[in-house]
């Protein structure tokens, strides 16, 4: 077992453990902070899989902005009386469904890709990703900027519509 694999397994254990805590802890803000640990560990996994540019985008967009946005929303929607139980009544159904999804997907990938190895010859540096993005993927890139603009305008309209009433 190489050093890369050991570090990857450590990151994987960190990601799964903090994801479980993020989804089960009763403290709202702790949940968002555990998600930071999960997303950071996944970014580490990206680096180990030669995707260094994607890893930095993950750190910037997810850890930097999405989690801050979520913490803002948690603070803005703080209620006078805290919700008594943080989970719904169908908690066990949800647990069974999540377990079934994880085991089903895991069994599928194990039977399909057993024995395959990642060699890691092509490094996803900013230069190579940028070359691919602005030569072969220009049209999806431009459409995506339109989607982002629509989402931005939609978020502003939805946020303003309540204040006029």
């Amino acid at each position: 077992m190489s050093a890369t694999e050991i570090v990857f397994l450590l990151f994987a254990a960190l990601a799964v453990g903090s994801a479980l805590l993020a989804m089960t802890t009763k403290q709202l803000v702790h949940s968002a902070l555990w998600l930071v640990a999960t997303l950071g560990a996944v970014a580490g996994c990206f680096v180990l899989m030669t995707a260094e540019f994607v890893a930095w985008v993950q750190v910037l967009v997810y850890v930097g902005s999405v989690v801050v946005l979520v913490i803002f929303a948690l603070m803005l929607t703080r209620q006078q009386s805290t919700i008594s139980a943080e989970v719904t009544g169908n908690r066990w159904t949800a647990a069974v469904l999540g377990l079934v999804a994880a085991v089903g997907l895991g069994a599928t990938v194990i039977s399909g890709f057993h024995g395959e190895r990642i060699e890691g010859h092509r490094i996803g540096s900013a230069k190579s990703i940028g070359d691919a993005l602005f030569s072969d993927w220009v049209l999806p890139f431009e459409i995506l900027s339109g989607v982002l603009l629509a989402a931005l305008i939609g978020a502003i309209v939805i946020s303003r519509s309540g204040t006029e009433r």
Partner: protein
Amino acid sequence: MPLLYPLVLSAALFGIGLYGVLARRNAVLMLLGVELMLNAVNLNLVAFDAWFADQLHTGQVLTLFTITLAAAEIGLGLAIVLALFRAVRTVDVDGVDR
């Protein structure tokens, strides 16, 4: 590195995220579960890109697109949750349909 490591990790994160979406009562934390599921998909895309190693860098470019869409989704989703909070003064998904 065996291809199975990231794939199995991704399956586990997807299951945990699905549990979070279905079990959480707070609408903001439900959205966190959706983010976790999207991140599991990103892990799959990057793993298959590194394994397949094609000229177009398909997997990593699609990962960037997914991250962008996830950012748009969380922005819009939180705007909807805040509008809901202003309307009914709660973000409890069980309490909304009263």
